[in-house]
């Protein structure tokens, strides 16, 4: 299969994944928009007024980047884990496995699907946020690059979850017991400087803290962590998860007998 044919197969899979996201928009786009509206309403408007300012910004303005990032993370992850696992479970993943399309296109095609959903939801949540607060952009390059890279990282995470999952329960374990706690404790709603020293050090082990703070820096210009370190961690996760996905698909783990 020459490079042009490989690119066609990648385009086909990406298009298929994006069409799936758009076809079931009531399941993929609408729920996070409603959930985030509630977050803005309750945490921002009702509780936020009593909290006052955080790092020099209104509480609503402070949490907006975190909420956008949270929705991007959960939706990128959720899209790939659901799409890949259902393809595996219903066996139509075999359409790709019997074809000559290389493994990198299978990985990248699904990741693109996850990223498109994550970024679309991020856009919708940003629009929702504008009804409640303003969204300044301190550095457009950092804002967009962190958003795109984080979306790719969690799309790969969803793919790995789907590769290992054997039943539907396995698909929800990681999002419920790992992803959600790490996201909520990743500085979405607060600055880690408010935490006791021990908790601050513990928080530094949470990779999502770096992603949320780097994105917040891109928008507000404030961060609890070093931005260079954040990029390093995001890129390391991206490379590591991509390599692991390729290895597992190559070996047929979870997808071939």
């Amino acid at each position, binding site marked *: 299969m020459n490079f042009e044919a490989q690119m066609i197969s990648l385009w*086909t899979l990406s298009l298929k994944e994006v069409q799936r996201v758009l076809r079931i928009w009531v399941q993929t786009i609408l729920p996070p928009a409603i959930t985030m509206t509630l977050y803005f309403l309750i945490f921002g408007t009702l509780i936020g007024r009593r909290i006052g300012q955080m790092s020099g910004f209104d509480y609503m303005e402070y949490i907006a980047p975190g909420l956008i990032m949270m929705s991007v993370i959960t939706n990128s992850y959720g899209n790939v884990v659901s799409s890949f696992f259902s393809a595996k479970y219903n066996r*139509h993943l075999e359409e790709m496995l*019997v074809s000559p*399309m290389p493994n990198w296109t299978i990985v990248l095609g699904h990741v693109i699907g996850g990223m498109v959903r994550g970024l679309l939801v991020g856009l919708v949540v940003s629009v929702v946020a504008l009804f409640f607060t303003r969204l300044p952009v301190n550095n457009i390059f950092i804002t967009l690059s962190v958003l795109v890279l984080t979306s790719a990282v969690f799309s790969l995470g969803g793919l790995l979850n789907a590769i290992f999952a054997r039943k539907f329960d396995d698909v929800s374990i990681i999002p419920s017991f790992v992803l959600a706690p790490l996201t909520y404790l990743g500085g979405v709603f607060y600055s880690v400087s408010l935490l006791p020293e021990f908790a601050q050090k513990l928080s530094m082990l949470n990779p999502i803290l770096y992603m949320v703070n780097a994105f917040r820096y891109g928008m507000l210009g404030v961060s609890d962590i070093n931005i260079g370190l954040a990029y390093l961690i995001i890129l390391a996760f991206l490379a590591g998860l991509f390599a692991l996905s390729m290895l597992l698909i190559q070996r047929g783990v979870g997808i071939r007998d």
Partner: protein
Amino acid sequence: MHALSINNLVKVYSNGLRALDGINLHVEEGDFFALLGPNGAGKTTAIGIVTSLVNKTSGEVEVFGHNLDHDLAGAKSCLGVVPQELNLNQYDRLDNIVTNQAGFYGIGRRQARRRAQECLEQLQLWDRRAEIARNLSGGMKRRLMIARALVHRPRLLILDEPTAGVDIEIRRSMWDFLRAINEQGTTIILTTHYLEEAENLCRHVAIIDNGRIVAHDRMTSLLMKLHHEVFVLNTRDPVVALPVLEDFNVSLLNERELQVEITRSHDLNSLFRVLSAAGIHVVSMRNKANRLEEAFFRLTERREAAGDELPARARAS
């Protein structure tokens, strides 16, 4: 050139099951080949390895000279597969399913759409192209899987029980379709539990049992190896007493039906002469069991276990 060449193929599953025990199989280009065997014999595992859905333990597989270990993409490009179980995205449109499959083989979108239309028209599914696969009947889903397998014009088409659960009318039309694409040059490997289907369609046959090939021959040669056949004869008048026929093993099924076992050393003319002399007039006759079915049971040593009663349809399942 061999369309498919399998040498010493072994598959041992992680639970220790030895599904394939060093099989060798060669399928000529342009052939219509039957791969038969009872459930659990190793057919689907062998097909799974050829289509790269199952990892082999050892052995060599080549598809049109492309070795699976060294040129997997080349081998896959030559292959189309219709699996035993439905593996369609039930919520996708028919035309999307077939068009996307072409795209996975590197065929550009415009050409993929044209090819999808051709294949769906050939399989009489074009009128339903905008429906989701879930809305189709079982037979239509099978046809859709064939359309999907053909969209990249494979040189070797592997069909794993394509007519399972399909009514006789659709099955016959699928036979005609498969014959036509075989005549156009596509090599076909067919596994089926309907042995009359294999006998009707295929020129060569291999029988696999317990992970080993127990027969690999031309269909006609295999059938010639049958030492005897069993016929059921319908008589014009009720048979009151069973005639004594020295060279034939005869039994009375009911007052108008005789069962006669005839060996290769005798012919039907001598049988009819003897019956006529005994005042028995035969009005019709049929094979008790399909000839390939007889061969199958003998080769897989299942006749005793299955008893003497063989239904009209194969009992390979």
